[in-house]
């Protein structure tokens, strides 16, 4: 009996010790993270974004939207991507062998016509069944392929992408109109940046019309409120703290901007990877985020961005230097022929910094 009491006591001791250490870590992360948020709020100011646009110093972006059985949300999501405030981008929707009417909905909503398309199969994927272009949106391309999972769909999108940066998004997510501008700015400022992520907020409670977020509000339900708090903690304290220490390991699958050539160099997204918050594949989800798929409502990648510098990660040393955006200056970036073994998904490209609205 005494032994049992002692064991229970020791257990309590362990629990206390665990929480003491955890809280100390949270405190440290809060200090680093909030400092980072305050600083990046100034660095990515309205003026710096305006200059980026007016001086045409931006890098064009390919938005990759892997989708599977999303007939109800796909048209609104694609509309929101097409409405982004960015001067040069293309949207590539990859229908990953859907069993519902996803492709038909897209055909009707965007007046798609089938076209012959020559592309470089830089990454192996399941066979492509057809390529469609929109009669109303010249920068929209829809790829229909056999089902292979989100990673396979992203790799297929990468094969079709034309621009030096690509942005992986979930088909049930909405992007802040300035998300791309803010994220892409960091690639311009530092050629070592390989990947930029964003903060994600559940849309529950927000007022959305035609894929545009008109007003952010708190949801009514207790659990949904807690989810928003947990997302905020995960991104503003957890991620921001990690990023301040140059130690961020992942970028959310719901919104991440990468250098295309570097992603192809490491073999694209490894097959079988679970992927971001809601979709069928991609980089691993953030702690506390993404796994909330059970709760209703899409994710809303906010304006807070993550910024990665690869130099501190050994396996990307080789990828950092020669394929900086320079050589192609905003046009086609040739992927390297010598593919490295698949190290990890695009997420671990580098550390990150959290950026606020």
């Amino acid at each position, binding site marked *: 009996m005494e032994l049992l009491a002692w064991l229970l006591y020791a257990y309590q001791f362990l629990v206390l010790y665990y929480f003491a250490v955890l809280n100390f870590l949270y405190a440290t992360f809060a200090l680093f993270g909030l400092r980072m948020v305050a600083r990046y709020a100034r660095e990515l100011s309205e003026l710096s974004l305006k200059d980026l646009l007016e001086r045409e110093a931006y890098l064009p972006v390919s938005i990759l939207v892997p989708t599977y059985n999303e007939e109800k949300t796909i048209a609104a999501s694609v509309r929101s991507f097409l409405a982004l405030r960015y001067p040069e981008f293309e949207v590539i929707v990859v229908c990953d062998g859907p069993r519902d009417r996803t492709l038909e909905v897209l055909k009707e909503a965007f007046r798609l016509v089938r076209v012959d398309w020559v592309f470089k199969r830089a990454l192996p994927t399941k066979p492509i069944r057809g390529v469609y272009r929109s009669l109303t949106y010249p920068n929209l391309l829809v790829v229909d392929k056999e089902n292979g999972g989100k990673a396979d769909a992203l790799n297929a999108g990468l094969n079709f992408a034309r621009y030096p940066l690509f942005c992986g998004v979930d088909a049930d997510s909405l992007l802040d109109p300035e998300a791309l501008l803010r994220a892409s700015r960091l690639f311009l400022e530092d050629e070592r940046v390989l990947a930029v992520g964003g903060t994600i907020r559940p849309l529950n409670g927000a007022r959305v019309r035609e894929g545009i977020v008109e007003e952010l509000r708190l949801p009514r339900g207790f659990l949904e409120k807690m989810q928003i708090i947990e997302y905020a903690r995960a991104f503003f304290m957890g991620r921001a703290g990690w990023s301040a220490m140059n130690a961020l390991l992942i970028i959310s699958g719901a919104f991440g901007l990468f250098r295309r050539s570097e992603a192809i160099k490491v073999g694209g997204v490894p097959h079988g990877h679970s992927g971001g918050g809601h979709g069928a594949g991609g980089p691993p989800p953030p702690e506390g985020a993404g796994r909330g798929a059970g709760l209703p409502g899409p994710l809303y990648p906010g304006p807070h961005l993550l910024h990665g510098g690869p130099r501190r990660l050994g396996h990307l040393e080789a990828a950092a230097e020669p394929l900086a955006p320079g050589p192609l200056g905003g046009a*086609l970036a040739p992927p390297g022929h010598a593919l490295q073994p698949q190290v990890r998904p695009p997420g671990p490209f580098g550390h990150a910094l959290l950026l606020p609205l």
Partner: protein
Amino acid sequence: MWRRGERLYALLVFLVVALEALALGGLVWVFSGRLLGTFDYPMARLHLLRALFLTALALVVLGAYVLVYHAYTALKEARDKALYERYLPAFTEALFSGTKPPPPPWPEPALEALLHLREMLKGEMGEKVARWLRRGRPPWAFPLKSRWASHPERLEALEALGLARLPETLEAILSYLEHWDPVLRRAAARAAARVAQGKGVLHLGEALLKAGLPKGALLEALLLLGDRAEPVVALFLEKGGRGEVWAALEAIGRLHLHGLAERVLPFLEAEDPEVQAAALRALARLGYPPVGYEDVVLGLLRREEEFLRVHAARLLPLLPQNLARRALWEALKDPSFYVRRAAAEALASLDLELLRKAAEAHPDPYGRAMAAQVLREVAWNS
């Protein structure tokens, strides 16, 4: 947007969580003592209650602060908005009717309104706003000189000075190009590029040479200089390292600095392939034929670096037409998808008939397919 009081907020969050960690640490210590028989039960209970009290107190303080913070900032924002809306029409009216502006001292929102006017208006009107800004004695130079200002305050000040475009503030901004923090150095480069006038432009160029900024940031500074960039670009070409030369070549093309086109040509033979690629891009953007360097451009088509072959193919239409046609036909056989693509696009701009022929009869099946694809796109876009 992030608001005032943030440092206190961050500190408070840290203190509260640290206090909780401390309380839990204390409990660990006391419970360990109890386990080893050092503390008796009443002592352990006392410590447990103290820990609970401390945690509750910390949470109450944080909660109260958050509520007060939000109430205060909401109030302040409403007041600032009202002031801004009062001053902006007053300044605009004074500007256009020639009457006197409201007398200083002006509150912060009034200065913000002036900054917005300064950003919008050029020429004489802009200068008038600049004179008013000087009269208003804006406080932005202080955080730059203060030892105690935070990084966000310095960033804010640099941005405001960039908007104000007061040439006399250039020296204060330039000193930040030597700052240890690259974020402040980049912000200073942007602000200085907006502010620099006359001789200040060359000062900025010299400071940028020593700033050790990444080439993207250098390019942005040059683009912000716009029509004032030429002396800085020339300086970079003459004295710059790899990054500066790359940025200068990019800027020549993007800003269409035709006066410097001749100086781009020697860089086609540079040792660094990225500099060579930048030179190719600059010439292509300017539409400047590489006279005397035709063999060099054709030689670049045989280089190992794929991106060099891509840019060389894009420049080929500026070579003598027969030479260009032959070279582009050959480039359609290139093993690289991207070089074939560039060659087909270049052929489309040079000779659409030859592209049609390539789509039907080019000996390389991949070249044929690429020519057909580009032909379809031309038809689609037209």
